């Protein structure tokens, strides 16, 4: 049974009827394809995390520390004291169920514990039991239950089956954000050494080398050199891509997958081409070689530890301000947390585009501008010329990434760029885009191979909306501004809607950009432009 191939008809056969048994009596089942492997000890040790050990979620014994209960309850108390959000969200849910069918994991699995409200109740029930008068007196009647090892196992399963996408929060009458509750849950789990490898190992890499992939400085330089060569091949132009250059005007920080992953890389070529064409004085940094932040998926403290390098490097290099590349959760951190945790950035200047003179008022404190804001401004001021037909081989749609949609609101900048750089753009149905966008199903550090079944299930609503525009308009390119999407959606697309590729928005920019002295041989993937594939054979 080990390697049965998953079939889409099977996965789409979803039963939304909850079981007859009360949810508190349903034990968690750790099943192949729906959980993530625990973190390797070396990574946890590198980060000084507690109770790192060898353990397996499939075993009965999770080797919890002796005083695990005390640790969790103390941790819970601590978090309740630190976060009004957590405390209020624990207290005010009326279980109206409005959020229930808004979660992609519930829609894709039918498992009632993936309804945001029930996911929250997994923790809320313990909160009631130990922190509320009603719960202490009336117990189960008040919705309280005792903290047991099974509860911990349930948390492990379902807090790593939430991608912290915040879609539920949009529909909740009180804005209850289950992502916030999941974050607290994960923080508690990590106090028991119950972290997963695809979060804690990238975090350890990032702490050491500056990026999740563990690429060392010379490796970073190789990648960038390689990109410069590729761009020469495709455009006939050799661009400069400065690294660790002191006194540059702008520090440019991207998610590491941009220079190492496919299809991210084509968008990376797009950045290089654009910055060359407008003559931007910028630099990469090998130390701040990651904008992404898997610390966010671990704890507020880990997020801060990993984020610190960005301002530190901006200060060391003496830049004026910072631009950040295409990435979802990276921007949640940069937009909603960075200034608070590692600011104030009073050693930087308020960002002004050196090309258009536009003041980025919205970033005047953080001093960090999203590349899409920067590029949209260039286009609006006619500072770049495009030949849209060079993207005619693509029929394009756009996936709003959860974090940038619901934790920031950058919705129209990318659409403006896309419309300026291609001729065929079709949005997906309105209940599946913008603030109502559906998650890729693999965000927040759970985009692993071992978790594939759950990812495919979680990706189902997104894929279904893509299928709609594919059938209606022949869409063959799903663009997005998120490194995790680009890494994980290809598998989801192949499974549910074969024939749709992924691309960053700046790949379209790089294709369409008219560069002085260019000799284009094809697009940034080395494919011929539309109409030119014929010529080759003549």
């Amino acid at each position, binding site marked *: 049974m080990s390697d049965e191939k998953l079939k889409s008809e099977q996965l789409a056969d979803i039963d939304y009827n909850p079981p007859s048994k009360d949810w508190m009596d349903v034990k968690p089942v750790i099943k192949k394809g729906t959980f993530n492997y625990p973190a390797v000890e070396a990574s946890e040790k590198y980060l000084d995390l507690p109770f790192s050990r060898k353990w397996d979620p499939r075993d009965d014994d999770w080797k919890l520390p002796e005083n695990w209960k005390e640790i969790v309850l103390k941790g819970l108390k601590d978090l309740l004291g*630190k976060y*009004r959000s957590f405390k209020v969200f624990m*207290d005010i849910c009326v279980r109206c169920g*409005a959020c229930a069918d808004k979660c992609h994991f519930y829609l894709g699995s039918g498992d009632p514990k993936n309804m945001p409200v029930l996911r929250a109740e997994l923790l809320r029930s313990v909160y009631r039991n130990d922190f*509320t008068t009603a719960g202490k007196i009336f117990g189960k009647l008040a*919705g309280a239950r005792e903290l047991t090892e099974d509860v911990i196992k349930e948390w492990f399963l379902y807090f790593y089956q939430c991608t912290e996408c915040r879609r539920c929060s949009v529909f909740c009458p009180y804005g209850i954000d289950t992502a916030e509750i999941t974050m607290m849950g994960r923080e508690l789990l990590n106090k028991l050494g119950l972290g997963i490898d695809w979060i804690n190992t990238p975090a350890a890499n990032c702490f050491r080398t500056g990026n999740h992939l563990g690429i060392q400085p010379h490796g970073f330089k190789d990648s960038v050199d390689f990109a410069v060569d590729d761009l020469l091949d495709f455009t006939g132009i050799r661009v400069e891509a400065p690294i660790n250059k002191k006194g540059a005007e702008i520090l440019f920080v991207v998610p590491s997958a941009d220079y190492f992953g496919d299809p991210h890389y084509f968008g990376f070529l797009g950045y290089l081409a654009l910055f060359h064409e407008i003559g931007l004085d910028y630099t990469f940094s090998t130390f701040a070689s990651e904008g992404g932040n898997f610390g966010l998926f671990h704890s507020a403290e880990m997020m801060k530890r990993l984020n610190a390098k960005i301002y530190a490097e901006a200060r060391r290099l003496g830049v004026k301000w910072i631009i950040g590349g295409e990435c979802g959760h990276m921007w949640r951190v940069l937009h909603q947390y960075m200034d608070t945790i590692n600011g104030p950035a009073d050693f930087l200047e308020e960002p002004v585009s050196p090309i258009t003179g536009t003041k980025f008022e919205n970033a005047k*404190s*953080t001093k960090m501008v999203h590349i899409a804001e920067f590029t949209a401004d260039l286009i*609006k001021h006619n500072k770049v010329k495009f030949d849209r037909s060079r993207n005619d081989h693509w029929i394009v749609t756009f996936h709003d990434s959860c974090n940038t949609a619901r934790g920031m609101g950058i919705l129209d900048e990318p659409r403006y760029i896309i419309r300026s750089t291609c001729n065929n753009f079709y949005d997906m149905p309105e209940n599946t885009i913008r*603030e109502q966008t559906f998650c890729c199903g693999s965000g927040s550090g759970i985009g692993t191979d071992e978790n594939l079944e759950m990812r495919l299930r979680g990706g189902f609503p997104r894929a279904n909306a893509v299928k709609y525009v594919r059938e209606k308009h022949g869409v063959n390119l799903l663009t997005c501004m998120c490194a995790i999407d680009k890494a994980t959606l290809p598998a989801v697309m192949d499974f549910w809607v074969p024939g749709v590729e992924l691309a960053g928005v700046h790949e379209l920019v790089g294709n369409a950009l008219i560069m002085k002295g260019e000799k284009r041989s094809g697009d940034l993937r080395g494919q011929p432009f539309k109409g030119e594939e014929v010529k080759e054979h003549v």
Partner: protein
Amino acid sequence: MNAFYALFAVILLLLVAWVGVGTVDLYSLFGIIIPYLAFTIFILGFLYRIIKWAISPVPFRIPTTCGQQKSLPWLKSSKLDNPHNAFWTIIRMALEVLTFRSLFRSTRAELREGPKITYGDTKWLWAGGLAFHWAFLIIILRHYRFFVEPVPAFVLYLQSMDGLFQIGLPVLYITDAVIVVAASYLFVRRVFIPQVRYISLFADYFPLFLIGGIAVTGILMRYFTKIDVSAVKELTLGWINFKPAAPEGIGIMFYLHLFLVSVLFAYFPFSKLMHLGGIFLSPARNLANNNRAKRHVNPWNYDVKVHTYEEYEDEFREVMKEADLPVEKE
């Protein structure tokens, strides 16, 4: 099961009042002591809960943004759903509280052949919830007439609006009908929508039955069993002048009503009904999305162990030099 327990609980409460007043004549207990006690618990409990929330820190500014951000001047931002300043945040909150905008947005997912998921609009919960709450609010405001003499103009105005249809005698208040229908709807959906039934606790049914019970006893005494209204006003004015006296002969239905109201008041601060206060303090809604323009301060921000550039360069200096990357120390 939880629904039955909740129903029993409310029936039990009714019996308690029935026995207490109807057979043992405990007028002072049910007419004075319990109402005073319940009201005190309500006020203190409510304040306690609100203060506890209000003093807990808001380390991060984490509004859930539901529309285009304010960025470039020529891009139209969604002021209401992604407010960038305090003014629009207040408007967002006001509309949320008064019109339940988030619920209005709701969709109902359906899986069809294909497979294909559709998201139809669904306004039922929004309409039912809104009707329930507004009716409740207007009814409470109408009750104000028992506590002041002469009755203020706005209450008279509310009364006449509410009785606009002039049906029956005494005139039927629209809100009386609405609250019964809406509460019934909220109950019925809780029982019949499998997912909602699955998540429902005793604490979800109990307030519904309690409020339902209050509405029904209220309606019964107004339209059917009839009570001595001037005696009621004597009692209520006695309460607020701190010269309480419980007149006999108001009618048992009044005491049943009053007891359920007392229980509601006393129960309120310990229950999910506190969402009334909590919604105003929800950080996903009550903050402006201007994080990058205005720094938010975390009161408990503390230093953490970081990896410094110096440590980084110490580890990688040799490979950096080989790769012609500039270094701080040769």
